[in-house]
């Protein structure tokens, strides 16, 4: 039997059993579409993170105190710290060629208060370099002055939300606020921007690093963020950092270096795994579609028993009958897959219009995997009904008898 004839034969069956065919198409289509759409969500999240990192637009290297053997993982927030990383260490790293800016960071939470209003917020002790490294700017006033890397100035830059909470509509630049047990003058308000890398830039306060040292009573830096020029080799720079730290730390380079690439890779890994898991879960719907196809095929085989007997009487072998029924399932699944793909991409298009910021897109493997699983499920679940059809005794089948 020729392929074109078989397809035509199957198509006529589909026409004859229109409702049944429509429902099966729907089941397969929903399965395929759900795999594509759900994995698109995971992939979209991965791309979103990617996009966020690269919106920083530069090449970052983070120096963390303490040696950590694993590379790439999330930076340890509290670890066993053998030797503090100090502001002097940070300033020494500025000598390395290719370093564009350096931001030593001390982080903690403090209570910021003005008159009767107070608020517990994330407090970053840093230098002017922080604004370069994080591509931050002020909407009003000024950023930290260059002297902030050596002097404990009593100045601060507020996030917009914090400023609004403390001052309302009142002018804030040049005013005093209480930060912990100190008084500081507000010199700038950060420009309006949402979260960046998990930090709510709207609800925080930035103060000079020396001031933070005193405030938190600790000379240890939380981390040093280094912004490299575009053409600088990360590997060479890492070597130079280690050699400088070794000189300063009595022969031990007890720091962990995390590059932006490594962080990105770590996030990427997590989200890719997540996407795969989501994909696997949604593939269950394809399995369900497969079982549905098996049931309906079994019904179809018993309804068309007389026809099968006749086909055998006029020259069809068991193998041809099997092929005819398997082909019917596979054709149905192919059509269902096309429907599902069309629906999924249509939905993705609509979503991209509604939420242009979220880069919803299926991972490259989603479509082939969805269709592959659908075909595999169809193949597996149609073997049994097709074998039933192939095994029918033509004499009994034509009498319409059960065997």
């Amino acid at each position: 039997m020729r392929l074109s004839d078989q397809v035509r034969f199957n198509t006529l069956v589909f026409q004859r059993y229109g409702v049944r065919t429509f429902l099966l198409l729907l089941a397969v289509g929903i399965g395929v579409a759900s795999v594509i759409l759900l994995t698109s969500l995971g992939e979209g999240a991965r791309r979103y993170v990617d996009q966020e990192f690269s919106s920083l637009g530069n090449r970052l290297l983070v120096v963390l105190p303490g040696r950590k053997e694993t590379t790439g993982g999330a930076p340890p927030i509290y670890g066993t710290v053998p030797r503090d990383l100090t502001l002097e260490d940070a300033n020494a790293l500025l000598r390395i060629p290719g370093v564009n800016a350096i931001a030593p960071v001390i982080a903690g939470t403090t209570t910021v208060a003005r008159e009767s209003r107070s608020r517990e917020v994330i407090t970053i002790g840093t230098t002017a370099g922080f604004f370069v490294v994080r591509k931050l700017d002020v909407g009003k006033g000024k950023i930290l002055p260059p002297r902030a890397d050596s002097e404990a100035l009593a100045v601060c830059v507020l996030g917009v939300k914090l400023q609004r909470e403390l001052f309302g509509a009142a002018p804030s630049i040049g005013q005093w606020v209480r930060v912990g047990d100190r008084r500081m003058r507000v010199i700038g308000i950060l420009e309006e921007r949402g979260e960046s890398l998990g930090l709510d830039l709207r609800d925080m306060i930035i103060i000079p690093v020396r001031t933070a040292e005193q405030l938190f009573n600790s000379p240890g830096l939380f981390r040093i963020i280094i912004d490299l020029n575009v053409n600088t080799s990360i590997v060479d720079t890492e070597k130079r950092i280690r050699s400088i730290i070794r000189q300063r730390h009595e022969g031990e380079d007890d720091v962990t270096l995390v590059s932006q690439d490594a962080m990105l890779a770590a996030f990427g890994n997590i989200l890719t795994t997540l996407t795969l898991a989501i994909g696997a879960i949604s593939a269950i719907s394809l399995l369900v579609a497969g079982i549905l196809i098996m049931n309906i095929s079994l019904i179809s085989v018993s309804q068309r028993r007389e026809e099968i007997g006749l086909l055998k009487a006029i020259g069809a072998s068991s193998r041809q009958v099997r092929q005819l029924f398997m082909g019917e399932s596979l054709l149905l699944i192919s059509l269902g897959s096309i429907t599902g793909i069309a629906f999924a991409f249509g939905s993705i298009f609509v979503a991209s219009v509604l939420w242009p910021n979220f880069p919803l897109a299926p991972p490259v493997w989603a479509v082939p995997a969805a269709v592959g699983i659908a075909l595999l499920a169809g193949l597996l679940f149609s073997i049994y009904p097709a074998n039933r059809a192939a095994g029918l005794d033509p004499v009994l089948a034509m009498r319409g008898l059960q065997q």
Partner: protein
Amino acid sequence: MIVLDSVNKTYQVGGTPLHALDNVTLSIETGEYLSVMGPSGSGKSTLLNMIGLLDHPDSGSYLFNGVATETLPEQELARLRGENIGFIFQAFHLINRLTAFENIELPMVLAGEPVKSRRSSVRQVLDMVGLGDRADHKPNQLSGGQLQRVAIARALVMHPKLLLADEPTGNLDSVSGKEVIEVLEQLNREGITLILVTHDRHIGKRANRRIRMVDGKIEKDERQGKGVKAERGERGDHAPV
């Protein structure tokens, strides 16, 4: 063309064996016109299905065109059936979603014949059964006699050497029954071997060779009026009483 030797087919019905075919020995030459008659349940259809390679004997041998069929694989049997044997059934067995043309075309489609040769062959057999103008009719748009003629056309489209008709007139009125028989006899005159199972005495008598079956045995086998006692017991039945 057909040589059956001591063919048996037994069904177990409620514990007791039922001999649908009981040691049937029969040979049929190419071009013969043979009618099979006998009471209901005597094994006529079973015999026909056996000859048509749709059923397998429990024991005995069957040579079709000199080929021993017992050992042939299923696929080979299907091919032999498709190429050499045309079936016509009492219940027509046409596929309702297909037109007359498509029903007739089906054996050629299964055999993988090209579209062009299919078209001319189907046209030819449609004309032969006098339904040239009904090619695009669906079965539910045709009368009983027309349906059976479509079935005959389908049986003929592969140019088989053997035509097996199991009560082809059983569902037809006498006029259309007669038409159908005339078509079949015309085919026999053109050289096709025709085996006809019927309950109709008048139709049965028209055949040159007439077989009467009772309880799975061939009771009578006569040619052109001269009665010839059945050959049963001729082989392997020499045991002394």
